[in-house]
């Protein structure tokens, strides 16, 4: 049982959360696709010449200008690939118009629809895993650590405040009891 629940009108991901495009002599397969945020697009160049891919899109933190050049087909390296991770931190649901050029001449356009990723992940594999693009996701992401730090600090502050209040109240109660006892003794 494998898949992320997804419905899409055109060619769609899932499985490995990567979606491949094959750049042949005269065509790109497929020439349009729907994927989700957090997916990785991989463009395989299977001909004997370089190709350049570019797109520009409005991301969450401003304009994203992306460019990648693939080498000629070579199964022993990844130089004939371009990968882009649609990091939901940066990419909005939108349509990417990816331009592919041969010798600086526009050769083909691939339209990729990025759908909102509303899938809730329960947790990464133990030890983390390598994210598309080569980055290593730690077991705990930096964002997570920051968030956890904030929460931890909040918890400590809350605990300290509660402890102080409890101590103060106890002291006050003890002080009051002492006064009461002194008054009774008097």
């Amino acid at each position, binding site marked *: *049982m*494998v*898949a*992320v*629940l*997804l*419905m*899409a*009108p*055109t*060619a*769609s*991901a*899932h*499985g*490995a*959360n*990567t*979606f*491949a*495009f*094959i750049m*042949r*002599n005269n065509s*790109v*397969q*497929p*020439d*349009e*696709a729907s994927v989700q945020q*957090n997916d*990785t697009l*991989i463009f*395989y160049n*299977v001909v004997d010449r370089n190709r350049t891919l570019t797109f520009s899109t409005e991301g969450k933190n401003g304009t994203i200008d992306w460019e990648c050049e693939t080498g000629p*087909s070579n*199964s022993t390296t*990844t130089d004939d690939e371009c990968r882009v991770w649609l990091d939901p931190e940066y990419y909005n649901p939108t349509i990417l118009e990816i331009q592919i050029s041969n010798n600086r001449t526009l050769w083909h356009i691939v339209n990729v629809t990025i759908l909102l990723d509303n*899938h809730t*992940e*329960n*947790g*990464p*594999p*133990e*030890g*983390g*895993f*390598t994210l*598309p693009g*080569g980055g*290593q996701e730690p077991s705990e992401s930096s964002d997570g650590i920051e968030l956890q730090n904030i929460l931890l600090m909040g918890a400590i502050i809350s605990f300290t405040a509660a402890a102080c209040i409890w101590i103060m109240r106890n002291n006050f109660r003890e002080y009051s009891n002492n006064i009461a006892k002194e008054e009774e003794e008097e």
Partner: protein
Amino acid sequence: MTFLMLAAPLSGCIGVFEPDADESDSWEWIDPVTEIEDGNHSHNDLFAHRLATPNAQLIDYHNLNCDGNVKPPAELDNVAGRPCFDEFKNTGPTPGDNSEIAIEGNFLDDCEIYGDGTGGCFAYVSSYNQFEILDISKPNDIRLLSTYYAEIARMIDIKVTSDNNWVLVNHELTNSELDPIPNDDDANSGANRLDLIYVGDKTSPIKVAEWDNPPAGFHNQDLHVYCDWEPANPTALWQDDCHLFLFGADPYPEMVEGSSGTFYKGTQVFYALIDFEGLNPTNNNEQQNASREIIRWGGYTPEPQTTCGGSIFNHDNVFFIHPITKQKMLAVSYWGAGLRLVDVSEPPQLADPLGISWPPETGRWLGCPTDDAGWYGPDGGGHANMDSDVWLNANDGNDNIHYAVPQDNLICSGISEYDPIETWPEHCGTGPTDATYSENWRHYTYIAPEYGSNANHTGFIWTIDTTDPTKPFLVSKWKLPGESTLADGTTHPHHYIPGGYIFSPHNGDTGLSGHVYWTHYHAGVWITDHGHIWDELVWENGYPEPDRGFQAITQLAPSHTLGYYLPAGPDWIEDPTNTLGYDMADCWASCMIPFDWGLQYDPRGFVFISEMVSGVYVVQFDEDYDSRYDYPALWSVEASDE
């Protein structure tokens, strides 16, 4: 009870060939699939799902209760199994969370126990935290022999060697994005192991070896013992004449393991230097440890240029021996990259851990052209003339190839070499080697997708002619019959999957003469007949042209629907949910019955079904009955009612 059984077909979701009140021999087809839950239908209504076509008979059932206990004593956890007792069969509680089922034995000898003590037939069921071993020698009286439990989940696939001595189970990490638990947030997310269990004593399985495969383990695995392969430089003195190879489907392929700078492929082959004798539990640890080495020996992933894009992902590897070429092969399901036939006949003398040259691909099938010319080029016969956009469109029932199962043998007009020769049609000649008629003996491989949800379709079961494994071509396709009703009340030409995988195809198996059996989760188990495909293809020039493949076919042959069976507890227990303690609240994937994960076909004519919540069902379709193996059901509703 009887009333409930008769009323069930009328209650909504489940359909059958409904008995006609006037003519007992005719049945009205009622669609068994209802997508929308409303006042007329609940997916959780067990009795509304207790239905089948009239040709399907429940022969036996076991809820897999071992000894009344959910777990073993702590000292056995993840170490050894425990024996089970017949008196607990079909009593509460029911452990549930069942997944794959494997069967092995000398079926065509009717599971006879030979003089040397070998023989017999057994079923193995993986069940998340445990697996079970059943004696299925008598299909109408199956017995649970033992249960092996491991608190660390999750075992979702199980395979066994042909000698019934060694079981291979996975412990796959779950709750990852790749393979989430649809209906659960269980913190027990499993491990990343393959475990080898010695099951020579079926009442006391014992773990003898484990291997880690970070980060997630394997999603599925298969294995084969090579007794005709000889390493030039034996790496271990204890190696005898036979060698064990494992074929793992890695859910996190090269993109993950590339973090180490090593790009392993999706299909991973391991040479297990297992000294089976050395692993004998009676040996000491030192002796056993010396027998546990496993070496990465090969790897395969489709080359990008052999795909038309999409998600290239290895879900499953099924080992088989091609009946014509005698190649040892894997039928590999690669999601958007379709079916891959990979030749594992001759392991190399030197390990090829990165899969640079071994194992090679023999053939493939996708709906789209995947080459500039030749069999897979635009004019070739090895695809279905689909644009890549079409092939990768799950909404049309395409893409997402999840499981592939090849036939073990050739078929001709609905017969096989296992049928008496006097029953063979004239155009089948004297068999597959007949000088005139050999072409009519065909080999097929069946492939199907899986969808978590699909607003338009439940997916096709594709029949691929793999008689020549270098030139596979499409000959038939089949989907769940019937239309659906959408939320707005309009009809829709296909059934669809609102979510939770509910009616998706899952795993299948083949019969001897062209019958195919497939689980469809909540839609139950379906039997289709593919035996006459070669007779019913419409060829462009009026005669078969397999060398032109799909391009020579003007009309695909039909895959005939023979029936279905929806497991829903034993008929002879009035309230199985409560009586047997079905866990309807804390299920792994679904708390619906049926939710059928896997099945296996016993060549004596029985289907063993693993239903995820309730257990194992033995079903016989009338078309499979063989008088040599007469095992009628021993239960009767009337008797229990009385």
